[in-house]
């Protein structure tokens, strides 16, 4: 029997296996799930900034601050409603005013913490980010709002 003929057949088989195998791998790669959900700290920063900008743009903040009632509770429920349940938040609002010396002074306005972070949840926080936003009320008072968002593990 001619051994060269057998080699030709083996070569043809190996070639066919290689080509078909690589095509199957290529098709397999294309079928892999592409919708990876990746979280970055920047996403939290953006979310915090967008939240502050949205609230200030709707003049909601100045309306809340103008109300003499428990605006901290109103703001808590606003954030609690608008943010996903896996996000913890902590918000502080300061009034910025010109002092007699020509400097800007900061006065903390919230009498109670505006947060949903409980002591027992502290160890569940995976990452956090903050954003600040300066906003002016219709009467010209300047406020500084700082919002810290934290993502819980598995969120």
């Amino acid at each position, binding site marked *: 029997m001619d051994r060269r003929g057998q080699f030709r057949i083996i070569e043809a088989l190996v070639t066919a296996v290689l080509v078909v195998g690589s095509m199957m791998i*290529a098709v397999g790669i294309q079928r892999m799930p592409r919708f990876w959900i990746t979280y970055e700290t920047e996403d939290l920063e953006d979310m915090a900034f967008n939240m502050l900008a949205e609230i200030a743009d709707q003049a909601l903040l100045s309306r809340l601050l103008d109300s003499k009632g428990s605006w901290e509770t109103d703001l808590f429920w606003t954030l609690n409603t608008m943010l996903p349940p896996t996000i913890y938040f902590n918000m502080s609002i300061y009034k910025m005013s010109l002092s007699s010396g020509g400097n800007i002074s900061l006065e903390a306005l919230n009498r109670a913490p505006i947060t949903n972070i409980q002591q027992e949840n502290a160890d569940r926080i995976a990452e956090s980010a903050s954003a600040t936003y300066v*906003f002016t009320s219709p009467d010209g008072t300047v406020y500084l709002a700082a919002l810290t968002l934290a993502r819980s593990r598995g969120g």
Partner: protein
Amino acid sequence: MNRRGQLPIILALILSGILITSALLTYKVSVFPKRAEQSEWVHVILNAEEDFHRILQAALANFTQEYIATGNMTGSQRKAEIKLETWKLAFTLGYSGLSLRLNLKSNGVDVSPESSYKVSLTYDGNATDKTVCVPGLSIAAGHFFNCSWNSPCGISAAYASISLDIIKQGLYGWNSSSIIFLTLNITSIISDSSLNETRIEFTCSDGQGCVNRLNKENVTIHVNGSQVDLNRLEYTGMGGYIALIGQTLNPPYTMTITVRDGRGIAVRASLEGGSG
């Protein structure tokens, strides 16, 4: 063994390599994060642009209300400028970690050109058209506010430009400008002594278009220096309003309408109702 026989295998290996590499490249492109690179400077600029507009609006409201209360133009301008100055310092402090260099200035702007229009005046059925010259309004360089209230076409305006450098992030030269105004035009007065009432028609507009949310509390009318009660205020569309007062106007008289919109900006228009 014949070495030429390995050629198909080598070609197949190359072909496989090309196939798998191109598939991996396609996959990498498809999962690559599709987002523009951004940093904290984007937030600062968005915040500056939005709040600069708000502070200019609040400062114009402060200027017009102060001017109505005191009649002192320079003093009212100064007080409103202090609001702008405070905002500038506050904003810089709010982002102190980024080393901002923020400037507010006014290069001057022409708000409205000189014009003329006709006001329809009717006293007990006798109608006349009065041609009124409306002076142009400009805000001089170095000033942020101005108003023209001594004609039937009143206007209050503010203009400023902002420039911002974010030194820590290497962003220099961002700038923007904003103009805020409120106009009030008296278009018609119909006075009827048999009904003992006067119907005053006026239009009101701002930078966004027609002002359509005025109510009786926003409008004050003075005749010969005395405030008169406003019986009714009707919105007729396109920024037009009809105000009804329970008294007739007998020339000569001076009538002043003051409107304060939802932002707190005030504007005043005056009309001399002469016998001629």
